[in-house]
Every structure is written in C-alpha cells, then in structure tokens.
C-alpha cells in the first residue's frame, strides 16, 4: 500500500478516534445513578454538580454512563455534554444601561415594523402591547430564598 493510500485511510479513521469517548457532566445540583433507566430502580451512586461521567448509550429519557467504574443510568435532565458554564454577570450591571438599551430598541420599533412590512393594524396591535416594566422586574428579581430555607422546604418531598 502506498503512502498516499495510507494517509487517506488514516484521515478517514480520525473521526472514529475523536468519537471514541463522549463525556457527560452532571449539571443538576445532585443526581442519582440507577441500575436501570427508571426512577423505581435501585440507586448505584449519588453524584454532585460538575462530576464527569463517560457516556455509554441512551434511550428516550436516560443516559447510560460509567462513573467511578460503576455503570448505571442517569436522567437526561441532569447532564450535559459541556461542563458548567460560567454564569452570566449581566445582572450585576446597572439597570440604567439596560433601560437605555430598551429605549434605544423601542426607538427603532417603527423601523422594525417598516422592515417587516407590517400592516397598520399589526403596528397598532404591537404598540398596544405596552412597554417594558423594569420596576416590576426588579421586584421579581428581589425575591430571594436561601439555600437553608430551600433545604427545609424540600424536606417533605421524596428524597
């Protein structure tokens, strides 16, 4: 076999090597590893956020994974192919800037309508929708609960 043919085959084989191992990271606060893809099955292990598992397979609602040498099934809701993303820092910015941005966006609403070619009745409907209420939004964001309060609150649920 000549060198060119060998290179060709090696190139073809590359994706296989890359796909050899797939990992799933636990992104929920906690997650259970079950012996079967069922919440009714015995629990093999309890995992915490950020822990890495090796993906072995999947069905509609579960991933089969290997974790610390143990194989089991984990809910698809709890994991993701990427490790935890650094959370957004936008809320730390001042709202003034955001409201300024909102006003700026509102100022182009007419342009937007023109670009979309909306009929007059559609433009009327859009303007009747009402503007953003950032004061109410800040009140929503101000409602906080502590981890201890949440832990106490969830005590009545099935562990």
């Amino acid at each position, binding site marked *: 076999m000549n060198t060119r043919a060998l290179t060709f085959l090696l190139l073809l084989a590359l994706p296989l090597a890359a796909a050899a191992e797939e990992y799933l990271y636990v992104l929920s606060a906690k997650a259970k590893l079950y012996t079967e893809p069922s919440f009714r099955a015995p629990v093999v292990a309890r995992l915490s956020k950020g822990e890495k598992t090796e993906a072995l397979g999947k069905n509609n609602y579960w991933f089969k994974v290997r974790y610390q040498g143990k194989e089991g099934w984990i809910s698809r*809701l709890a994991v993701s*192919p990427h490790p935890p993303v650094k959370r957004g820092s936008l809320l730390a910015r001042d709202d003034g800037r955001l409201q300024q941005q909102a006003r700026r966006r509102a100022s182009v609403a007419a342009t937007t309508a023109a670009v979309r070619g909306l009929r007059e009745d559609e433009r009327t409907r859009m303007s009747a929708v009402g503007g953003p209420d950032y004061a109410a939004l800040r009140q929503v964001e101000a409602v906080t609960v502590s981890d201890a309060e949440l832990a106490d609150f969830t005590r009545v649920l099935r562990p």
Partner: protein
Amino acid sequence: MRGALLLTALLVFALPTWASGERDFRLREHELALQDLTGADVDAEIAFGRDIAARILGRVPRYDDLAANRYVTLVGRALALQGNRPELDYHFAILDDDSINAYSAPGGYVFVTRGALRAMADEAELAAVLAHEIAHVNRRHIVRQARVRARDDSGLGGLARLLGGSGDSARVAFAQAVDKAMDLLFVQGYNQRDELEADADATLMLAAAGYDPTALRRFLARIGESKARVGKTHPPSQARLAALDELIRAQGLDQLHYPTVAQRFRVHVGRR
C-alpha cells in the same frame, strides 16, 4: 490492490455508522446547541430574557403579595435544581390575571397567573406548571424559535452578536427577536413539538424533585374539562395527554406515589 483499497475505504466509512448504532449515542439538536455555550452566550440569553420578562410584566401586572411570590419561588427553585442550566438564576412570580396561564422568558424568568393557581389542587400541580416553563427555558425554545441567526442555527451566536452590536441593523434585528418572542408567548404559542418536550421534561423533573410525577397530567386533564378561561397558547390537547400517559406508563411513574403536598399548598395559596 485497488480493489482491496476500495474495500478498506468502504469498511472505514461504514464503521462510524455501526459504532454509533452500537453505542446509540447521538446528541439531539438541543444538546448540540448547548454544547458550545459560552459565558457571553448566557449573558446574551439573560439580557434577551430580561427584555421579554419586563414586557410580560408591562402587559400583565405582577401580583403584589410577597408571601405568595416567595412560596412560588421556593417551589420553582426546588425544580430548577434538577435541571442542567446551573448558570441561570431563576426568578418566579405570580401575575395578577384570572386566565389560566403561565409564561417563561429566556434566562430563567417564569410566571404563573392567579387563575392558574386557583385551578390547581396541590403543590405538585404548581410544581408541574413551573417545571413545564423551566423546561422551555432550559431547552431555549424561545431563543430558537425567535430565529436570531447570524453565526449558526443555535441562535445564541447571533444573539450575542446582536447585543454587542451598535449598528441599526443589529438593533432592528434584536427588536424583531423580542417582538417575535412576545408574539410567540401571547398569540401563536409554542409548536407542538416544543410543548410535548416541555411536558415530558416537566414530568421527569417532578419525579427527580420528589413530587407526584402525574401532577401535570392531572392538571391538564382538569383544565381541559373545565369551562375556565384557559390560555390559548397552552391548549391541553389530546395529543399532550396521550403523550403523558405513554411516558407515565413506560416509566412506571404512577407507581412512585410521591407526595402531592396538598395541605401546604392550601395554606399558601388557598385564599388567593
């Protein structure tokens, strides 16, 4: 030699198909879309969602009762912990509206109406409705349907660019995306695929959190039979009920007998 080379090449081509079939590990569209999320993408998603959340509150007033809003927040946070978006801060609030409805905006903003609370029998049903909305957030259904596209089909690359953009075209495109999201929430509703995904996720989220996982099925069936004013963007269709029945049956969820927490719900929501 040429024949052998061709055969080898064909075998190598065929291998990935066989391998993926054996491992049965192919990421779905939304999983692929979450794969490359960056901090900037998340910032953009939250900013987009804040704009939409503020507009929802501009259209439907917030119910000004701190104790009730804190209660809904505790239920919502218990569910959000089960999801795969720890980078988001979830916020929950009651809207002062008699219709039976719930809304969510990208980035973690979830709203439920007083009408919906009145139609619920217990805390598990409240958890079910919040979980359904959390699922829309976590799967970025609005971001994807608003089709803010620039770099790719995931939407976020485009969204991050729009927020950072200063030109008129970027501003117009952002305003279009917000308009489209509002249209989706208040006029068109989600497409059926997104609704079915959110229903399934919500039911699994209930089981993971330790709530009765049949609660969404119960709630949808009840409001489907009632004459109450049900939000037309979340119709409790037969297809949704049938899909939930199949999920509950296949996973044996009705055998779990997890708590409904009816008494605490009555204490916190009873007279509201």
